[in-house]
């Protein structure tokens, strides 16, 4: 991660709004829109080195554990919490719950997949399951722009683009799943409207 930080700064460059709303200690949950593998690296680079080992991206096991090298890199270097997207019994979020009990900070992409670059899709409900179980843990929404342009899904060539990050204010569980999900989705959509982005199509 010591290497990644200057690479993120020179290769991309970050414009961040409302940085002070980022959690400074665990347990906490960060949710963000997902367009690129770079998302995780960029979010991790926002945290001080001392906190880094406690920030855990939640990621798909079928993708990141598909070969031993990738699995080693994902779990040992990045420190992901792998979850099974197709479950056969058992609670797929078990490890995520465990991490929160250890006062760690989770990164969750509720869209579930990187999808079409620079477009938002409907959120999956996993985040509400976590929040319902830990109603006192704050959920901080982030909106990221530009990384889908720099390294979109299905493309191996990296092209430098500045990355805009908008940090929203933290939310707490409100007792009703659908309403809560709608609120989080609306908040990220609002964050995306704060920016003035050049066209890209």
């Amino acid at each position, binding site marked *: 991660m010591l290497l990644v930080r200057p690479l993120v700064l020179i290769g991309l*460059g970050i*414009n961040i709004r409302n940085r002070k709303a980022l959690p400074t200690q665990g347990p906490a949950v960060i949710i963000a829109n997902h367009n690129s593998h770079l998302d995780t690296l960029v979010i991790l680079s926002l945290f001080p080195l001392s906190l880094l080992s406690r920030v855990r991206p939640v990621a798909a096991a079928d993708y990141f554990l598909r070969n031993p090298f990738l699995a080693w890199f994902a779990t040992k270097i990045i420190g992901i919490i792998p979850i099974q997207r197709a479950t056969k019994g058992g609670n797929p979020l078990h490890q995520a719950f465990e991490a929160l009990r250890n006062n760690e900070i989770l990164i969750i992409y509720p869209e579930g997949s990187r999808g079409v670059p620079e477009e938002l899709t409907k959120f999956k409900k996993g985040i509400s399951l976590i929040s319902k179980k830990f109603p006192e843990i704050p959920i901080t929404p982030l909106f990221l722009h530009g990384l889908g342009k720099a390294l979109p899904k299905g493309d191996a060539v990296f*092209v*430098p*683009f*500045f990355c805009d990050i908008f940090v929203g204010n933290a939310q707490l569980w409100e007792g009703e799943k659908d309403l809560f999900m709608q609120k989080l989705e609306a908040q990220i959509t609002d964050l995306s409207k704060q920016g*003035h982005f*050049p066209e890209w199509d």
Partner: protein
Amino acid sequence: MNLLEQLPITQDLLYIIAGVYVLLCLATVIVSLMRRGQAPEKHLELWLRVKSWWYMITIFTFAICINRALSVIFLGLISYLALKEYLSMIPTRRADRRVLFWAYIAIPLQYYWVYSGWYGMFIIFIPVWVFLFLPFRMVLKGETDGFLKAIGTLNWGLMMTVFSLSHAAYLIVLPETASENHTPIFDKSGAALLFLLVLLTQFNDVAQYVWGRLIGGPKIIPKVSPGKTWVGFLGGIISTALLSMLLSLVISPMSLHMAALAGVIISFTGFIGDVTISAIKRDLKVKDTGSTIPGHGGLLDRVDSLTYTAPVFFHFLRYFYY
């Protein structure tokens, strides 16, 4: 002075650098006095600007003092950051990702031509080879919607941020490549020319700002490009010409009246560079080109004048002296 002999700078340049730091200390003291006893947000932007100047001048001084390769790499990095800022700011097409990738590849090549002192390649690489290659690469992708706009904006950005700015870097190698029969000599006057260009350009920006504020408009903190009053403009021309006369005699081959002319040219073209980038920002409806430098905005906001002064000053010197 054994150490100095190994560095690519002369003793005269060292004195001028010291002079710049004296000015910087003075500016810091003045702004601190202005802020004294006031609320912390008073003159905050001015304070951030002065602080950023400390960083920028120190980094730049290091970049030109250590060795030539580092100087060229540093200026290449400036071009890269400026191009990245530009391409992040303008509308681009999804289909053109690979084309943009090739545009970035042009930067190390262009700066390699500079480093090796290959003038012929340096001067045609972007206006001819890259200019012809990028549309070809774009055509291969087959996306014709918005083709002209895409290739036009990309080429303009490359000319401004890479071709123009690389002229500043070429000043370093200009004196020795111009020497007769191309014997490889190590001439230290190049770094001084680069320093002169950058110092005069940035001094002019500040002079236009200060004159504009002192006489032009009281109690206004200009948000975009300051010093767009006539007073600022003329004050900038006179101040820059005077400074140019003072410095050029020491660290350039120019005579007194040519140095004055160089100062006027830098001031005038610096102004054009400034308003050109401003026009683009207004077109795109953004205030700053980025937020890389606290108090200044983006990097492109800082080097906007240099995109014009670098090639003009370069060709002025080359035509008359090398």
